[in-house]
């Protein structure tokens, strides 16, 4: 069932190497990020997974429902996990300067530098192999006290990493709420630089039995189109519908 997302977005036919995908989430959970992760895992690409507010266990659990085993891939070094709740906790306990969250406790002019260096190190070790750099919930950095300018710089660095190495693709997700100006500004800015923007929202009129939400797909490269889908999340995947056909 996880394939339906990929087929609907036509990502099985379009090569995403050297390109970037931005997912803007208005609701919780990140079903599309997980689907894209599943696709990268199935294609055998190396993955760098950067997370700020979830643990490895969460990605593993959702991944097993979608059909791939994260722990297995971690042990084979196909996937490298950076950050996560464990690192956050360790940054409080140990105050180690190689921890990406150490900027919370020790002064640092460039808070995301450690994180960026660890990502670069992992990618340079892989050389010419195809990889995906997946960053989940970039807006958590605002919650941790990082300024917008640093976050945008970080994004630009990641973007250039992926463009230099033409076999890499960048997938970033950002959660926004309508009352948070900083988040909205940042996500609008990033959406101009990304090649594919997926905006995921709940339904305007409230919750429904048949649907979880609606997805708007914007391609910034040719053909520049905009499409809308409705989707419903199941235990084992997501089903995508054209608007209005969910009840059929």
């Amino acid at each position, binding site marked *: 069932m996880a394939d339906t997302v990929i087929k609907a977005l036509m990502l099985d036919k379009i090569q995403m190497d050297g390109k970037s995908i931005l997912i803007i989430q208005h609701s919780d959970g990140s079903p599309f990020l997980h689907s894209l992760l599943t696709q990268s895992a199935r294609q055998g690409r190396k993955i760098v997974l950067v997370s700020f507010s979830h643990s490895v266990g969460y990605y593993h659990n959702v991944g097993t429902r979608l059909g791939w085993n994260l722990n297995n891939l971690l042990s084979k070094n196909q996937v490298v996990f950076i950050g996560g*709740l464990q690192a956050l*906790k360790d940054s409080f306990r140990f105050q180690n300067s190689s921890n990406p969250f150490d900027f919370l406790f020790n002064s*640092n002019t460039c808070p995301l530098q450690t994180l960026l260096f660890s990502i670069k190190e992992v990618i340079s070790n892989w050389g010419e192999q195809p990889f995906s750099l997946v960053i989940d919930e970039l807006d958590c950095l*605002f*919650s941790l006290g990082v300024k917008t300018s640093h976050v945008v710089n970080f994004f630009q660095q990641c973007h250039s990493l992926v463009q230099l190495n033409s076999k890499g693709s960048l997938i970033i997700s950002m959660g926004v709420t309508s009352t948070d100006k900083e988040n909205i500004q940042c996500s609008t800015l990033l959406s101009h630089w990304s090649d594919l923007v997926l905006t995921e929202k709940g339904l305007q009129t409230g919750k429904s039995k048949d649907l979880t939400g609606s997805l708007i797909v914007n391609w910034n490269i040719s053909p520049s189109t905009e499409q809308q889908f409705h989707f419903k999340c199941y235990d084992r995947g997501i089903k995508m519908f054209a608007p209005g056909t969910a009840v059929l």
Partner: protein
Amino acid sequence: MAVNVQISSFQKRTKISTTSIAGTKISALNSTLNVSSGIISLDNIMDGGFPLGSLCLIEEDLFGPYAKIMTKYFLAEGAVQKNHLLSASLNENPWDLLNNLPSPVTEPIRETNALIENKEELKIAWRYENLTLEDNNQRTGNAFDLSIPYAIPETQRSNLAVWCGESTRNVQENKGTLRNPNCLSLLSTVKEAIEKWDLASGNSSNLLRVTVSSFGSPFWKFDGNQESVSTDFTATLLLLKSMMRSANAVAVVTIPHQLLSKALVGRSRKIADVVIQLKSLREDPHLSDLMDVHGILEMKKMMNLTSLKPILGQDGTTTYGFKATKRKFKIEVAHWQQNKLHLPPSVEDDKSTSENSSSAGCSSGSSKTNLDF
């Protein structure tokens, strides 16, 4: 001479013994361990309670009395189950909270003989003749009485800990982005409690219940003004979540959301795993038509930690009415009809008026029957 020869490679699989943790129930939906919240009807909505390792946010009603009642129930359930408790508060003395917990009420045993009336001989299923019908819907849980304070036995006193804002001498002047001394002190207290009771090793059979009352009130000295959103607030919530996730612990944080900026509340909702919003009737003049309830409880978020499927909103309901009396905290499904809130007629027997009534209203607009002309 008898030789023990192993003929086949068949080995009987012995049941792997998992240490069961006091006060938790395995959820049928997604096999996480859920910690009871102390309120039976809330547990029914949440499929057993708060997931173990989660951070739960309660957005307080105006002035916070019902939120305080909910934290008391949560701690009281922990006291009954002999869990470790950590109460943190700057608004009041946390020992007051711990010494005035409601005591459990043992309900009278109800007779279950009225379920089968059929005493005739069973002709086909005669093997089942002598068995009694079990009521599978009976949920076990504790009811609490707020008027009688629970005297925690002396042996359990060592399970309690508090934090009341004293600045510990170990906390140095912090140079990073997280500067608020209250937050740092709270986080170190939580960390020490987890280490002291050895809850992060995976071998413990007990859990820690942490409650933080009125996090974000002016006592906490967050210096964010309305323009800039306070990042110490959200950073502390994230760090607290990371500590809960890696230990047998659950944290319930109540926030006075009317005092905080909307952006900050939005961010905290993104961080927390479970968000419950309470609204008492005084706040909203439209709701004063309701005679029966004391307020509205909305489940704003319930994060599924093991799969993509959303737990809430399966039938379109996330708004419930609650009624808090001295002996019961009852939560019922609310009907929305033409801007007026209707509740199912209250019946003597409160066990049957919980969530069985359907609530298809105008907010869930895709039910097929609405299109019948």
